[in-house]
């Protein structure tokens, strides 16, 4: 086994992770009619909008309480109230998702009670008017990464909106930070099993929408708040990702609070993980996998066979958020790529075990697995690994460029390629897309390096 993952440096150089409230904003964007709202300095909203917008290439409105020096000392309550009021009047949201920032967390300001008091006051003055729901979540960046912020926001949404009641036949599907195209595919396949499932959250339309034909202060789409309300009455929760079964996660909360069965699964990237996912859908629906999905599986296996010779002997590094890092490792291992190095900026402690499980029986030697690392460390540690491929975000580009090897861009953020929102990795169909991209990246590399320049490969 490789030595254990201890960060070599005190400082962080070129981080592999982003901040908690960014993850929360992304989760809030996945609920219909929701405006994310950051309680803190306005720079946070601007920076996060900038990053989300350059990845999705869609408008992303995030409001801010715009706290200044005075509010940092005396408290941000009045700004929070004024900010909520301005969002309510100008944007008419159904839900406002308030996330804290480093500033408000450092001064220890809990937004929940402030929000409750304000809403009660508003309701008193506007009888009969439906006011938006305001969901609050604590997301200090010194307490975790963006993926933790995402999970906390999903849990906060459920805690605020889910209600008990007689159990229904519907499911909850917690996909984690999936791309809009992946979310659409998940919804299609679940529907094909005759299952009714609420995808929580579902930013596929808000973050990959059409040209507008009407004025839309809050872009349409997302999980309806009603579906969140019904989440407490669901038959089961299918939660994806290596932290899906975690006791502090949203799925566990639904189980502990309402007794909704939790079925945690790894992200269905690759054949093996997708097989597990579809087996669960078969079990839940009592139906076999539909023919067109089985056909997708068949074509994927056929493609694996057809391209295997291009992949043999390639050594790869994966740098991604932990859920994705696990999925990608399993996928690469099953197509015959030697996964030599798996790294994440996340720090849940679950990566190594999850990668072991995902690659079990597929690799001759286990990869070095690193949590809580930065790209500087990744570069140092992978220099002599003889890599031929990197799979990761745009932030891995300098590394791939330095070494003259291809980068297959997956995850968040992707800001040097077009169409991140339409990129798929989940299920047989998503894996097929990913597989083609991996193979073609390697072919392109060989072709460009070739003195002959063969046109048939």
């Amino acid at each position: 086994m490789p030595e254990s993952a201890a960060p070599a440096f005190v400082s962080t150089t070129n981080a592999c992770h982003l901040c908690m409230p960014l993850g929360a904003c992304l989760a809030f964007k996945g609920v219909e009619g929701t405006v994310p709202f950051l309680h803190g300095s306005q720079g946070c909203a601007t920076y996060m909008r900038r990053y989300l917008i350059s990845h999705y290439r869609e408008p992303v409105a995030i409001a801010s309480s715009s706290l200044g020096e005075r509010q940092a000392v005396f408290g941000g309550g009045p700004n929070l109230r004024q900010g909520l009021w301005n969002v309510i009047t100008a944007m008419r949201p159904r839900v406002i998702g308030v996330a804290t920032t480093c500033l408000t967390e450092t001064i220890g300001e809990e937004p929940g009670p402030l929000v409750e008091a304000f809403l009660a006051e508003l309701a008193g003055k506007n009888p009969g008017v439906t006011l938006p729901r305001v969901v609050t979540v604590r997301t200090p960046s010194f307490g975790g990464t963006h993926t933790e912020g995402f999970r906390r926001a999903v849990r906060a949404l459920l805690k605020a909106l889910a209600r008990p009641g007689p159990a229904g036949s519907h499911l909850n599907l917690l996909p984690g930070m999936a791309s809009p195209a992946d979310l659409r595919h998940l919804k299609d396949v679940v529907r094909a099993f005759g299952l009714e499932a609420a995808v929580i959250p579902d930013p596929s339309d808000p973050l990959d929408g059409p040209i507008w034909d009407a004025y839309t202060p809050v872009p349409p789409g997302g999980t309806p708040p009603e579906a969140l309300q019904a989440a407490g009455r669901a038959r089961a929760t299918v939660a994806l990702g290596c932290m899906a079964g975690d006791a502090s996660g949203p799925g566990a909360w639904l189980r502990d609070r309402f007794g909704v069965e939790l079925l945690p699964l790894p992200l269905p990237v690759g054949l093996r993980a997708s097989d597990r996912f579809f087996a669960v859908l078969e079990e839940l629906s009592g139906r076999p996998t539909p023919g067109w999905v089985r056909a997708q599986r068949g074509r994927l296996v056929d493609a694996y066979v057809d391209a295997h010779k291009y992949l043999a002997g390639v050594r790869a590094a994966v740098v991604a958020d932990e859920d994705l890092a696990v999925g990608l490792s399993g996928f690469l291992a099953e197509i015959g790529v030697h996964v030599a190095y798996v790294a994440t900026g996340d720090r849940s402690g679950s990566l190594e075990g999850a990668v072991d499980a995902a690659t079990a029986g597929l690799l001759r030697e286990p990869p070095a697995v690193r949590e809580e690392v930065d790209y500087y460390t990744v570069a140092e540690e992978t220099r002599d690994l003889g890599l031929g491929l990197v799979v990761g975000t745009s932030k891995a580009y300098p590394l791939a460029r330095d070494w003259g090897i291809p980068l297959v861009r997956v995850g968040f953020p992707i800001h040097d390629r077009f169409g991140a929102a339409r990129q798929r990795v989940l299920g047989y169909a998503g894996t097929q897309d990913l597989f083609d991209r991996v193979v073609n990246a390697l072919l392109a590399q060989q072709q460009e390096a070739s003195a002959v320049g063969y046109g048939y490969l």
Partner: protein
Amino acid sequence: MATETLRPEDAKRALTEAYPTKAARKRAKQIVVNAPPDAEGFRPPILSNTRTTPGVITQRGCSYAGCKGVILGPVRDILTITHGPVGCGFYSWLTRRNQTRPPSEDAPNYMPYALMTDMQENDIVFGGEKKLRKAIREAYEIFRPKAIAIAATCPVGLIGDDIHAVARDMKEELGINVFAFSCEGYKGVSQSAGHHIANNGIFEHVVGTRDEPPGGKFRINLLGEYNIGGDAFEIERILELCGITLVSTFSGNASYDQFARAHTADLNAVMCHRSINYMAEMTEEKYGIPWIKVNFIGAEATAKSLRKIAQYFGDPDLVERVEQVTADEMSRVRAVIDEVRPRTEGKTAMLFVGGSRAHHYQELFREIGMRTVAAGYEFGHRDDYEGRKVLPFIKIDADSRNIEELDVEPDPERYRPRKPPEELEALRAQGLDLGEYEGLMADMEEGSLVIDDITHYETERLIELYRPDVFCAGIKEKYVIQKHGIPMKQLHNYDYHGPYAGFRGAVRFYREIDRMASTRIWRHVTPPWAQDPRPETLRQAS
């Protein structure tokens, strides 16, 4: 409502009517219909550099963004460490698309690195100074830089980490220059505060530390040019053609040593008045270097700026050389204008960006016959709109007071007035506007709209009312504007294009706007102007 008959006063009303009373009242002071100067030469006042109303979706960033991102961002060999949790350092990691050209392959360039302390809960509770010291030592071991800068994020000031004491200690320990910036995001009302904090720090800790001047007869500094998309390279090319020596740029394509000997220049040429006018003033007071406002955005503006520099130095050879270079470059520029103008003539533009770009880029549009019907800054102050004439009348509020004003006195050894007062007076009498800036309003049409810190909502309403042919802002606004069927040009990072400065940049910009204003892609789009559901009124609590 047809564009031709829209009265600007009506547009102004339409922009604010959906806001709650308090917000509407404030926004009304930040939206001004441009009017000719009054008898004393004053333009209508505009409320600016004031706190953004909470809950509106603003374009603005924070003090940290202005300091670490804007001013320090383009400097290749000062190693900047962000002291704070992960977000801020990540988001300011090369996102502004600054470029730099190190003098040699092995010369240092730290711009591709985002160093940070990534503070954790423990650091917040028990203080982060220890971790910061370790991070600095580590960074020094790895990179061996000439200088290290520390940039603070929100928690730092709140938990009382003394980053300046850490900088002093580390400077002594490592024997290199180490300095810190208290640019916590909550300070000031926008990134403008961060520009000021950064420039103060560079002025105090770096400028004046190397006395040997570079060669060259006509030595200038270029202030407020940040080399987005390679703008600085084009300006450097032109200055070199003219025989003008660039001692230092603040801070596009800049290096530590250039800053250190900036006081050896004989003239400061200021591009972005907002981000750096205080640096010009401080260097004049301390070292005796006069300043002029220049603008290298727009071919005519570039020619005019070069002539101003030549006029200042008053050397006939320089004057002649500038005329030659200008004539040569302009012949190529005019050919493109003639080609493009039939398609762009009479079209309209809106610019909402930065603290000088919304002014400078109007030049480029004018050169191809386009009108700017509305413009405003993200983080400008009144003097950037109304001209420096209003400086004595600007009320200093609590937010501005919190940003340190340095007490500057003539340097006992290095103060050297570059020209005797009579000569400066004579230059002024000949029309050289030394130390002057007339602001954006002076260059805008009567009846055009000037809007400070425009909001997301107002942007959409403006589009609906005016339907401009091109809307210029940043990436945050880009997609919402395009959803409305309006061509959008990013003027923060140029849509990964550029440079647009100087003569060659102007040509590139004309062609880009021509392409945007003439593309047929929009025929696939049905714009959303037909519908306009107005929200009914709610009563505000408290």
